[in-house]
């Protein structure tokens, strides 16, 4: 692959993914119905481009849109970039017959890192769309941040871009260039400070993409720079892994004078054993009981069990108990 010529240092890059926006299945067979017209870029990706454009405007630098995908994506990528990006780069697979991109998350992140890294576009800030629609995991931005050795702020639902209402009071401070808000479990929000050099991923509602001027839309297809990713090496065939089977060993014959006794001996059916115990507890007490049982079985050390007991007691507001006897500790 020829590395793209670097534009102004510190450009802002938006990474987008070519996906089937409205996948259909045949109701009679359950098989996916191929459609050339339902592919495109998600709202999250379009939002990422808008965020990149605004950041680039704010910083007086260029915005670049990058996609690892099939040649089919060229037109749509050009239209996306026509909204104001200095250029668009489409990295197509070097593998013949690969018409849909088909790169894994890890491979996509590596290709993007090559393009966006210091020897490529040298992007300061990278903005990606959040989890893609094709059952994506949202892992590419994180992997990309790893490859680029940049901090990451993922799953943002708001970015302080200066000209839109701020959600959750996200405002800039002295130590960070940007402020963002991201979603946490339990309907909670987290305000994060985002340094100037970072990888972000944004949800679709963060910033609707502006409409491209007609002149740029007309030129859109020609604006896309095509790159080829290196031909992927033939997949390494892993050594065949078989199910572990313990080596056979000789066991003494079961004791017993008749067949019934030998079956009882083999199965241990009539031996004394600890009967199962059913307890119904509130969640904090249940957690404490699980910890005690784990300690009894030897999965927790005494110190670990004591710490867990103390945590459980704090959660339930009760006295710490002995992990073995469940008696209040002195």
């Amino acid at each position: 692959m020829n590395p793209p010529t670097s534009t102004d240092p510190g450009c802002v890059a938006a990474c987008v993914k070519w996906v089937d926006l409205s996948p259909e299945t045949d109701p009679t067979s359950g098989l996916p119905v191929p459609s050339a017209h339902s592919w495109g870029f998600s709202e999250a990706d379009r939002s990422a481009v808008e965020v990149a454009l605004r950041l680039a405007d704010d910083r007086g630098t260029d915005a670049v849109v990058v996609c690892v995908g099939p040649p089919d994506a060229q037109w749509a990528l050009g239209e996306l970039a026509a909204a104001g990006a200095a250029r668009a780069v489409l990295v197509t697979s070097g593998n013949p017959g690969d018409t849909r991109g088909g790169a894994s998350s890890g491979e996509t992140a590596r290709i993007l890192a090559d393009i966006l890294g210091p020897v490529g576009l040298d992007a300061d800030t990278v903005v990606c769309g959040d989890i893609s629609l094709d059952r994506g995991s949202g892992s590419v931005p994180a992997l990309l941040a790893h490859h680029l050795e940049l901090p990451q702020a993922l799953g943002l639902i708001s970015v302080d871009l200066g000209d839109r209402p701020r959600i959750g009071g996200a405002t800039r401070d002295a130590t960070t260039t940007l402020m963002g808000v991201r979603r946490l479990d339990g309907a909670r929000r987290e305000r994060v400070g985002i340094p100037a050099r970072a990888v972000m991923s944004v949800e679709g509602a963060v910033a609707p993409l502006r409409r491209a001027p007609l002149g740029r839309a007309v030129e859109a297809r020609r604006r896309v720079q095509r790159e080829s990713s290196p031909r992927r090496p033939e997949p390494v065939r892993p050594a065949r892994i078989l199910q572990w089977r313990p080596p056979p060993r000789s066991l003494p014959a079961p004791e017993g004078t008749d067949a019934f006794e030998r079956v009882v001996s083999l199965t241990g059916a009539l031996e004394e054993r600890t009967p199962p115990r059913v307890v119904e507890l509130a969640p904090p007490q249940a957690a404490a009981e699980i910890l005690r049982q784990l300690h009894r079985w030897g999965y927790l050390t005494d110190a670990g069990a004591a710490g867990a007991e103390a945590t459980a007691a704090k959660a339930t507001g009760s006295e710490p108990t002995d992990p073995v006897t469940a008696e209040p500790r002195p």
Partner: protein
Amino acid sequence: MTEHTAERPSSDNDDFDAIVVGAGPAGSAAALELARAGRSVLLIERGPFPGSKNMYGGVIYGRILDTLVPQWWTEAPIQRWVTRRQTMMMTGEQALTVDYRTEAWGRPPYNGATAYRPDFDSWLADKAVEEGATLVCSTTVTGLLTDSGRVVGVSTDRPDGDVRARVVIAADGVNSFLAKEAGLYGEVDPANYTVGVKETIALPRSVIDERFAVRGDHGVDIEIIGCTGDVPGGGFLYTNSDTIAVGLVLSLPALAAGGRRPEELLAELKLHPAIAPLVEGGEVKEYSAHVIPEAGYDMMPELVGDGIVVAGDAAAMCLAAGLWLEGVNFAIGSGAAAGRACHGALRKGDTSAVGLGDYRRRLESSFVLKDHRKLREAPHLVMGELAQQKLPAMACGVAEDMFTVTNPEPKAGLMRIVRRQMRTNGVKLRSVVGDTWRALRAFG
């Protein structure tokens, strides 16, 4: 894809030689002809891709493509080749069908085919792009740019959306706002329009093959009359690979006056005993509606103005003549003629209405206006009461009387049956003779 190699417009004031508004069959054919002639063409499409509204009457007759795209059948995205053509007359619970099939229509050079318009229109637009046309989608033309009454470009809904050209081809579909803005349309009569509604219903391919008695990529096109109650119109049903499309074409004024809703009438059609077994068990994938310029020749606008020509449905080129329901081939024919005429006008440097006059001459000498002129009375006949209600009822009644065995009564003679049915359905001999004479003249 080949790179855009078209020559630049000769005037510095113009961005393009030609702007084609609408990337349907007419627009893409026009753009293809112009680009092939080396002209710079901007093809503007309102939808996200050409053909994004999958709505038409069912069959594409491809003979007109022979000159535009030689051997088109080897690459066009076709669903099925129509080898069975049925005309069905129905009443509430009767149906009389004339069924014609030929294997000849199922082999090159073929006759008609069903297709999904998103696939077909995109394919044709891509042909224009391959020849050098520039296609821009998701862009709505909002008006014409004029200079001293002459059209010099269009404005769009995009920022900085004005674009200029030496000629504009309005292929923006029925109810063309551009043709109206250019003053090419006179007073618009709603009676000249119908509304078409269509459901696309998914069925397994094997079920379609079995129900319609076809194999492989052969398909069926059924035109239906008498299925719209007291609203003048007609119905259609055609097969795709693994879907069927069933729909109605309904008179707009009668629909409004009767307070009926098109989806009600379509539901009634699907419940008809002749249709219900064909659609049974299918899943509706799509419902769409579209206005159709029904009156043909008698409602056509002025086809050219200074700097503008009108093509396709925008010029009411759809042929709705009862036995013949054709739109796409007329659109392609008119679009191709527009492209060639505009190229000639550009070469002569005269894109005034006079310079573009060759467009009408080309249409007059082709099937487009010859057929329209010959069949100009047909839409009125087809939408008349006799063809809509009395004829289907009488034909079904005659068939029922003929094939009903009334032993121990002897069989009635055919003339007696016909007279009885004419009385029953209120058909006067004088009106039958008159309409037959008109039909003979109309269908020539």
